[in-house]
């Protein structure tokens, strides 16, 4: 008797697998991370404990976690929208930067001191900037079938370098003693914060948009069109859905939401633009969207968990003196495991015994 393995496609995915498989994958990633931490000479248990304490242990830790979760949620929703129709917008980072740049431009050139008018202007311009940045890639795809993965990726660098130009050049704060940063925002342009924390009102935008997206996908004609296009573009055309027009529209909206993330970061948190201000939220958003299986509500939860990882990672750096890279490796491990675990949702492994 010789047991053999066989891989079979699952006909039906039991509903419990929808959460247990990603959870299991995170577990495996943490176990692999433990090996890594041991190799770095750190007790994994102590390290994970420090991470939890740093991010969830007290009010300050939790508020910091939320601060990170806000842009992650927004950017996660943004890329999730594009991914829903199988358009690979990996340019959220650049769209965040464009949104932030637009916000700074509004502060510089729109001479209003009414906060509400200021916020509305910043919001609109950030949406427009991020939306056009992504919509352009969408247009190229719809019109000439240009690969959006490449264009959105490349446009990240254009956006980042464009921001650098303004930060080092015309928009540099003259009183910054030569440091590359723009002039601080006036009080009227700063988003209000909650209590004594750094949590700004962007949290309401993030949660509100998540709910809006949920309604969009589930209850609207347009959301249905997007889902059909993503699942089967042939069927979409057959059903009279204009897939090309929708690619441009969805990319615009996706970029607009990422632009909002950029605007809330500068106006809510940092109050000025500095090089590398986003810190890769636009890329982490890809992980968020996948972990959340493109579900808007789950995006909030996953963003919070990744916030834990980010804040906990900061703690690790401080308390355990670990390099930033090790935290990023941990993040990478999680994505790797979760995407790999998709295999077990779609297939199962059967042991067969065969008589010789």
């Amino acid at each position, binding site marked *: 008797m010789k047991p053999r393995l066989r891989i*079979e*496609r*699952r*006909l*039906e995915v039991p509903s419990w697998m929808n959460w247990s498989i990603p959870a299991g994958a995170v577990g495996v990633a943490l176990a692999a991370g433990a090996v890594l931490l041991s190799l770095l000479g750190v007790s994994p248990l102590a390290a994970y404990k420090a991470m939890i304490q740093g991010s969830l242990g007290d009010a300050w830790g939790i508020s910091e976690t939320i601060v990170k979760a806000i842009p992650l949620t927004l950017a996660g929703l943004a890329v999730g929208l594009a991914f829903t129709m199988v358009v690979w917008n990996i340019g959220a980072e650049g769209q965040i930067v464009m949104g932030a740049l637009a916000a700074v431009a509004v502060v510089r050139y729109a001479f209003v001191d009414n906060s509400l008018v200021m916020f509305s202007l910043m919001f609109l311009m950030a949406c427009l900037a991020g939306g056009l940045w992504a919509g352009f890639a969408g247009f190229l795809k719809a019109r000439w079938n240009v690969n959006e993965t490449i264009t959105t990726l490349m446009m990240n660098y254009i956006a980042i370098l464009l921001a650098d130009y303004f930060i080092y050049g015309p928009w540099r704060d003259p009183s910054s003693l030569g440091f590359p940063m723009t002039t601080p925002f006036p009080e009227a342009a700063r988003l209000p914060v909650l209590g004594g924390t750094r949590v700004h009102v962007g949290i309401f935008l993030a949660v509100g948009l998540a709910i809006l997206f949920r309604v969009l996908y589930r*209850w*609207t*004609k*347009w959301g*249905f*069109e997007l*889902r*059909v296009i993503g*699942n*089967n573009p*042939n*069927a979409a*055309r*057959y*059903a*009279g*859905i*204009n897939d090309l027009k929708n690619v441009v529209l969805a990319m615009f909206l996706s970029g607009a939401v990422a632009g909002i993330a950029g605007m809330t970061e500068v106006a809510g948190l940092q109050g000025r633009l500095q090089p590398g201000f986003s810190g890769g939220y636009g890329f982490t958003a890809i992980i968020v969207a996948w972990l959340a299986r493109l579900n808007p509500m789950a995006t909030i939860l996953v963003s919070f968990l990744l916030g834990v990882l980010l804040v906990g990672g900061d703690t690790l750096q401080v308390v355990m003196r670990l390099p930033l890279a090790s935290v990023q490796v941990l993040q990478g491990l999680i994505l790797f495991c979760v995407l790999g675990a998709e295999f077990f949702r779609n297939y199962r492994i059967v042991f*067969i015994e065969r008589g010789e």
Partner: protein
Amino acid sequence: MESGKQQPLVQMLGITKSFASVKANRGINFDVFPGEVHTLLGENGAGKSTLMNILNGLYQPDAGSIRIKGAECRFSSPREAIAAGIGMVHQHFMLVPVLTVWENLVMGLPGLKAVLPKREVIRKIGELSDRYGLDVEPEAQVWQLSVGEQQRVEILKMLYRNAEVLVLDEPTSVLTPQEVRRLFDTIRQMTAEGHGVVFISHKLDEVMEISDRITILRSGEVVETLPGPMATREMLAEKMVGRKIVFAVDKAVLNPGDTVLEAEGICALNDRGLPAIRNLSLSIRQGEILGIAGIAGNGQKELCEALVGLRPIQFGRVLLRGKDMTGRKPMDFLRAGVSYIPADRKGTGLVGAMNLRENFALKNFWRKPYAKGPFLSWESIAGETGRIVERFGVSAPGLGIPVRNLSGGNQQRLMLGRELSGTPDLIVAMQPTWGLDVGATEFVRDQLLRQRERGAAILLVSEDLEEVLALSDRLAVIHKGEIMGLVEDPRSASEEELGLMMAGIRRETAIEGEKGR
């Protein structure tokens, strides 16, 4: 063939094979003797292909054994099967289009020299061609050949590899009646030379003509193995389906009404940008079924798509109830009451990952009462989906399950229900019964006839000649994107004549008749 003392070329004993929870083969015994045609008859999903893929080494059985000339064998690949003398000609040919015939023949042979022995190969091809009536030009590139010729190349490929048993999987589905006759001559020649042939089909007339023995499969089990000459059509059908089947189609006599669809000299390209429809004209009236017969790949799909707005029309016009629809969007055709049943239901007609409700919404989400402003009313969508499921007998565990988990027949019922539920003016149906079992086929035909009685204009495209002949009020034969002839009374048409038109020979009388109008 009576061959009590002869040794079988192939003997399959107690073959069992499961896929997930589906038992595709259960304890099947099957054998082939030298010089006989042993037919495997059964509906789609009866287990024919699984059994033959096991014989061909593509699948490994869960239980059971295979004996080749008495010796137990186990194949883990088609290469091993052909080495043991088992050659399979698949429904979809396994040829490289840009290579020549002789190159395709030697490709993949073990022990090939760096310089191919072209002259020797061509000589051997010539020998085999003469012996079995398999005419083909060895130096032609495969893409230049007709489907019938390509099939000959596939058979030659197997004979070249000294196959003693040939498995032909639905070989006639792509052929004109004349080509079928030629194939049968080749098969007879092969059996005369002592080869064994396994013939897979569900076309009863052909099966009765060519078979020495017939084994009928149903749901993975052998129903019966009987000598070919003893079989009757009714008996085979009954055993295949498990109940009595009535062949005659009950069609009411109707007087067609106003013209619904008119195509005037339309031209369209295929996906590769080559002309697929050339200067084609047709018209369909209310309460009329216009059948389009033809061999697969002669522009049927492009014609259907051009008529429902999914494919741009280069020249010519499409009129719906006298209104010029040329160049309009697919949505405009939908709004004008055009239903389209595409042949490719999984790839086009349905979204596999979406559930039954969502697949109903696919073609209806834009209209009341399923849409309210920008929002969807899942309540009314679910209500109508439930009614369709009931009326069209879709068997599904629930409205919320993905349609890819439904069987082909149930998917077709759901799609048909959706397309016919909105009382369409024009129905373009392409291969609506393809891949369905006899029961589901009857149902689909019946539904089309009911729509006809209701006053819909129907364009029925099918490669099943029997089907178009039975259902159509008028019949056009398509070849390379052109109409070869129009038959005003399909029941009086001779198969001979239709076969000639399918092969590209114009029916002059019909053409003149058209001009005279």
